């Protein structure tokens, strides 16, 4: 059996582990555009922050590929999949035959057209190790940084660089920061924390044009001079290999619960894939690192002849900005139970007798107990929700459920 994996990040790693977990025999070839062994992409901000050393960013031990019989083609990209001949054609013209193929090509930064952007010197994206190294090379105490985008990537970048530059300004079209994971009031708590550390925000606004390293904002006409520009507006899934091969693509590569694409023996996982989201009951891209692992692992098991399905995917995020921690999951619909005081912001969302979502800011201990209720769609009449409302605890479960959790192997 010949396994080929396009991409070398989390889903690819999980696929290798999935293949070997069911004793899948045969060689694995990994096509890696980046010249590094797998690392956790979100660690780049923590590296700038000094929280993790460059040499500790490896997602797996250095002997990982060798131990798993995987060959990595570093610095190579796949140009084309031929699903008839079952080969992948690389940028150097080489053809690699596969029996089972995983497409885990991730996503790329989306840079919207902005007038004068070409004339900006020192502009960066913030997704990869090379992005980080390039940005880091420009950081110094006298630099003013403008970040376009107040989402997860933009603000983690802000956290990483804030102490290493003179000033940081953030512009976003949305009316709040972190719009993909927070409501207005929750976002305000996080924004306040960042403003107290000196970050300046321009929300409901956008850079209308650049003249050299000066941005002119659309609303109010303010002009912002900067030395470094970071564009973190959003990402686009890398789907072209599959669509050009005739596979079904919506926003992402369409996969079923076993991570099969519409092309025979071709699987997809991670940020490029559009899989089943159990919180909405429909397919969508859940571009989250844990989800990339879950999907990649399931793809690997199925590629090697095992059977695995991804049925309980939900959006979930744990993200911190200095001392403020934000843990979220599920959807924000239904009845709301709120506990808001000082810097604590806690909201639980209940719908159809189940916990369907939560936002926890600075009060997140044991949050996984809540998450498991969402993932498992546990009817709340099976637990003592009055106890759970105040804090997550196993005491709220029945004696039998506790026994299953704590008195036997899980």
């Amino acid at each position: 059996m010949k396994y080929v994996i396009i991409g070398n990040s989390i889903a690819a790693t999980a696929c290798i582990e999935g293949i070997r977990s069911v004793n899948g025999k045969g060689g694995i070839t990994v096509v890696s555009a980046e010249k590094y062994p797998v690392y956790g992409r979100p660690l780049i901000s923590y590296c700038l922050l000094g929280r993790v050393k460059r040499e500790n960013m490896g997602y797996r031990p250095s002997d990982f590929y060798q131990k798993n019989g995987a060959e990595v083609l570093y610095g190579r990209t796949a140009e084309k999949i031929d699903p008839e001949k079952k080969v992948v054609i690389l940028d150097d013209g080489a053809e690699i035959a596969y029996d089972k193929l995983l497409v885990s090509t991730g996503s790329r930064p989306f840079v919207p057209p902005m007038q004068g952007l070409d004339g900006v010197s020192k502009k960066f994206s913030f997704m990869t190790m090379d992005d980080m190294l390039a940005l880091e090379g420009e950081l110094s105490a006298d630099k003013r940084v403008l970040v376009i985008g107040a989402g997860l990537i933009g603000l983690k970048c802000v956290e990483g660089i804030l102490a290493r530059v003179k000033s940081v300004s953030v512009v976003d079209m949305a009316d709040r920061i972190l719009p993909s994971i927070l409501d207005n009031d929750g976002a305000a708590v996080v924004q306040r924390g960042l403003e107290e550390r000196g970050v300046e925000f321009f929300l409901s606004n956008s850079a209308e044009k650049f003249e050299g390293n000066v941005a002119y904002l659309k609303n109010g006409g303010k002009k912002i001079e900067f030395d470094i520009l970071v564009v973190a507006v959003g990402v686009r899934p890398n789907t072209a290999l599959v669509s050009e091969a005739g596979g079904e693509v919506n926003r992402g590569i369409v996969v079923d619960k076993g991570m099969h694409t519409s092309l025979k023996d071709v699987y997809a996982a991670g940020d490029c894939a559009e899989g089943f989201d159990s919180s909405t009951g429909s397919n969508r891209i859940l571009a989250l690192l844990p989800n990339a692992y879950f999907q990649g692992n399931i793809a690997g098991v199925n590629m090697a002849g095992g059977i695995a399905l991804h049925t309980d995917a939900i959006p979930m995020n744990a993200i911190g900005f200095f001392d403020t921690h934000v843990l979220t999951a599920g959807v924000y619909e239904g009845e709301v139970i709120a506990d808001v005081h000082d810097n604590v912001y806690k909201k639980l969302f209940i719908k159809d007798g189940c916990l369907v979502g939560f936002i926890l800011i600075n009060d997140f201990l044991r949050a996984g107990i809540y998450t498991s209720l969402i993932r498992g769609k546990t009817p709340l009449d099976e637990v003592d929700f009055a106890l759970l409302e105040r804090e997550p605890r196993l005491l709220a479960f029945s004696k039998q459920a506790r026994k299953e959790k704590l008195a036997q192997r899980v």
Partner: protein
Amino acid sequence: MKRIYVNEEWCLGCHLCEYECMFANSGLDEMFKLKGRTNEFIPRIKVEGEDGNDIHFAVNCRHCTNAICVKSCIAGALSKDGEGVVRIDRDKCVGCFTCVLVCPFGAIMPAPDGKAAQKCALCTDNIMGEPNCVKHCPNNAIVFEER
């Protein structure tokens, strides 16, 4: 592999396991030296049930066969060793607390400095060698065995 299992009917809620856990992972040579310093350490085991409650039990890492924390860790800091013990590599952990977000038992928590997560490794990561909480439980309300 031997794991820690709970006999909740025998737990009085004395919290001794929490203190023994703190001591085992404190690096101190005598337990009394925790006096006045307990705020510097956070136990990796938690007794549920408030004082006066009839029900008490202790919760720590279950070392799940299919550990969702290991799969979810953004840094590769959580791993399962050859024996099946779920371990955390403090040098790799960035303190994002995705593990706290996914652990269905609430058994992973921030370390005292808040910059990394911590969890039970069955006292294989300290001088004790086997679970100090179990060793000192007066009622066998937690046991360390194969099941």
